[in-house]
């Protein structure tokens, strides 16, 4: 991901070590100076994101990367970046939590990233790779999206995507920018001054800004939705999962297909914008939907909103840095194929009672 960002023309990287994303920082530490670009290890994630904030004001391609607790520390700065309408890319290699948690792969930051990005009223773009090649491709895309929409772009990878090794093709080297946007702060030589700020002290001005952000978001929703469909044409059971959970679910879906079960997979690549319309459409014909996540059911809420009660939804998750095995998801698919899933009730509670992690230990 670091090399992909370099090839995409990133001019400055500021970060702070935290497992499981430190390899990204280390790669930047070696590569950026040898290319004459900016690398700086900050004293904290708080400082790192504010260095990114400053560098982004110059119109340069800039990024940082961190993992869950570090991203929590960055939230204030991210909100300022959003309020100042600056293009910035942040990679969050999500680990188990809450708190210090652990360094194992998790998707527990879905709310923090997809619904959040700090205080205030805005929407970030969120990309979720499920393998190394996709992580590389989405890194390149993230800078283009950030600049096109003057938006914050999160690449939300779980610790598995962050640590795995597999063959992949790197993109060609892009030349560094030579033109900078009209709004950039680079010194007011022979022109009026530029001010970059997230302050709109009059509520009516802030509302105009919020509306501008909203209009831009509607444009993003219309243009930038990305997802992958597998075996959905005749699927009675629709599995929905992103990142590593989506990847493991894909293997489970293939295994279930081999048993003759009509099951398919929808894997969101953009978590924001979210493929709500596609899920709504699938819910008209599916017997039931299964949401698979490495958390206690966060994207589940968005799926349920999209389904709007038109089809039963079940949930299967692992938490705390645990990654589901293919067989666990396969067992869920087989179960759902053989029984009627209730339309009413809370899928999260049904799952919690089914798996019973607390009393019997991990399966």
């Amino acid at each position, binding site marked *: 991901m670091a090399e992909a960002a370099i090839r995409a023309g990133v001019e400055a990287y500021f970060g702070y070590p935290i497992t499981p994303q430190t390899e990204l920082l280390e790669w930047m530490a070696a590569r950026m100076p040898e290319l004459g670009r*900016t690398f700086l290890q900050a004293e904290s994630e*708080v400082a790192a994101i504010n260095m990114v904030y400053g560098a982004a004001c110059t119109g340069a391609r800039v990024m940082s990367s961190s993992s869950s607790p570090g991203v929590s520390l960055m939230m204030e700065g991210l909100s300022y970046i959003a309020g100042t309408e600056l293009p910035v890319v942040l990679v969050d290699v999500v680990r188990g939590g809450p708190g210090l948690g652990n360094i194992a792969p998790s998707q527990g930051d879905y709310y923090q990233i997809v619904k959040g990005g700090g205080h205030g009223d805005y929407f970030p773009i969120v990309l979720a790779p499920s393998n190394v090649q996709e992580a590389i491709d989405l890194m390149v895309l993230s800078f283009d999206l950030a600049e096109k929409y003057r938006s914050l772009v999160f690449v939300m990878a779980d610790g598995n995507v962050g640590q795995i090794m597999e063959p992949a093709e790197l993109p060609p080297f892009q030349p560094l920018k030579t033109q900078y946007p009209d709004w950039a702060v*680079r*010194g007011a030589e022979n022109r009026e*001054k530029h001010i970059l700020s997230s302050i709109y002290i009059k509520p009516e001005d802030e509302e105009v800004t919020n509306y501008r952000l909203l209009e831009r978001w509607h444009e993003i929703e219309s243009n930038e939705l990305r997802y992958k469909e597998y075996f959905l044409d005749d699927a009675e059971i629709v599995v929905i999962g992103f990142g590593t959970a989506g990847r493991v679910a894909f293997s489970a879906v293939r295994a279930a297909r081999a048993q003759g079960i009509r099951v398919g997979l929808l894997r969101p690549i953009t978590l924001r914008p979210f493929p709500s319309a596609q899920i709504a459409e699938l819910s008209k014909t599916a017997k039931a939907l299964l949401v698979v996540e490495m958390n206690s059911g966060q994207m589940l809420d968005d799926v349920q909103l999209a389904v709007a009660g038109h089809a039963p939804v079940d949930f299967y998750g692992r938490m705390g840095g645990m990654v589901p095995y293919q067989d666990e998801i396969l067992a869920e698919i087989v179960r759902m194929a053989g029984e009627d899933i209730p339309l009413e009730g809370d899928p999260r509670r049904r799952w919690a009672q089914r798996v019973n992690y607390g009393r019997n230990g991990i399966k």
Partner: protein
Amino acid sequence: MVTTAPTRLVYQRPTTLSDTPNSYCPGCTHGVAHRLVAEVLDEMDVRGRTIGVAPVGCSVFAYNYFDFDFVEAAHGRAPAMATGIKRVLPDRIVFTYQGDGDMASIGMGEIMHAAGRGENITVIFINNAIYGMTGGQMAPTTLPGQKTTSSPTGRDVEVAGFPLHMAELLSNMEGSGYVVRRSLHDPKNIRLAKKAIRTAFEAQVRGLGFSMVELLSSCPTNWGLTPKDALTWIEERMVLVYPLGDYKVSPSLANLRF
């Protein structure tokens, strides 16, 4: 025969200071500090390559009062933001303008590490021993015994600790090239403050590392004093706690004269 005496312009607004009414209280020395910065930047003729970083506090709108490129930082993070700008644009002159709450309290981590790295930026530090914008609470630089809205019986050092001496602290960092304390309480000291600000920017131009000018400033409104008495309070009270002087001067600056 009528003759007209030749006119000589002796005083005008610096070109880098905007023709904008400011939001500072009567008698506050922020305006003096702004003017000194603008005069120095005019004299150095660097408007086109100067970028300012405004803080959170009374000077949150500093970007409105200067006429060159400016950004607005989160509370305390101005040195980090300035670092980001300076690292990408090393030939620009980048400075932060920060108060005591912003720099010495919430922004302590960012300022110490900027100095430690020898970040080649300039910091104008306004020390008025109080939180002005939020209405007069205790600052890290509030004097022992000083009454504020959050130390209503006076700062009790057994509870609230002691004032932080930022010039002394920052001068100990190896990355610092120029760290001094001046005061804005009378014309002589204002002139000395201007020289210090000039020297700090010259240190940056020469790549001598981190530079900081601490300016003892008045806050008549929140101190509950008249503007004149507030200046006297600086002279009689603040200077005793915060001695004026040069705390770190790179040898390369020793012979600069303005």
